[in-house]
């Protein structure tokens, strides 16, 4: 089984259909593709927001995502996966992050996508700053994201 891995950090938006096509084309062993897209909402914790700015740690961000992609591939029988994380200024309704997983079986595709998202939220070095009527402020990490990531740690 060949596994194709794509990891990108970019300012530009992504095209889910194109990314799915890139992951699945020329092969007929994939039975399930799960995509997760994270989208900028116009409220955060009840307060209206005008935009987000995403900052990241170049070099480490790619290294962390690659490490978790390798963990996902060792833990689930995946045909391929794609992680795209945008940085820079993002408006409500715009895409922030894309995770795609492809497998022969749906359970593996679902679990690997959830695992990657939980780890992106808590371990990948990205930070969100929000713009609202009250000015700009850094979004605080949420305890339940840590809890979500912790469920993948083997006890």
């Amino acid at each position, binding site marked *: 089984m060949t596994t194709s891995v794509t990891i990108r950090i970019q300012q530009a938006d992504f095209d889910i259909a194109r990314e799915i096509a890139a992951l699945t084309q020329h092969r007929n062993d994939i039975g399930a593709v799960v995509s997760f897209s994270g989208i900028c909402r116009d409220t955060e914790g009840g307060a209206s927001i005008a935009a987000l700015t995403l900052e990241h*740690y170049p070099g480490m961000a790619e*290294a962390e995502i690659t490490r978790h992609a390798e963990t996902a591939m060792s833990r689930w029988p995946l045909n391929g996966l794609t992680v795209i994380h945008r940085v820079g200024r993002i408006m409500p309704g715009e895409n922030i*992050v894309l995770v795609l997983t492809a497998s022969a079986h749906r359970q593996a595709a679902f679990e690997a996508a959830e695992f990657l*998202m939980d780890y992106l939220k*808590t371990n990948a*070095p*990205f*930070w*969100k700053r929000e713009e609202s009527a009250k000015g700009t402020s850094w979004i*605080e990490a949420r305890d339940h994201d840590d809890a979500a990531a912790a469920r993948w740690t083997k006890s």
Partner: protein
Amino acid sequence: MKVKYFAWVRERIGKEEETIEPPADVRTVGDLIDWLARRDESYAHAFETPRVIRAAIDHAHVRSDAMISGAREIAFFPPMTGG
């Protein structure tokens, strides 16, 4: 060694990165935070709650008891909020 700062740690310190030469008794990431916090008010503000500061050595997450000897690049930042 090179030190990098991100998000509000960067904003409070007022710079993205710098090269530092801590004394020999600064051995761990925690020691380095204490040493930096004593530099001036900006650093003190950035590191006022060490519990919430995350650190990485050469692009890998580390805890505050990690040794800094041999590190090329150390980064300090708040808890991550990507995804």
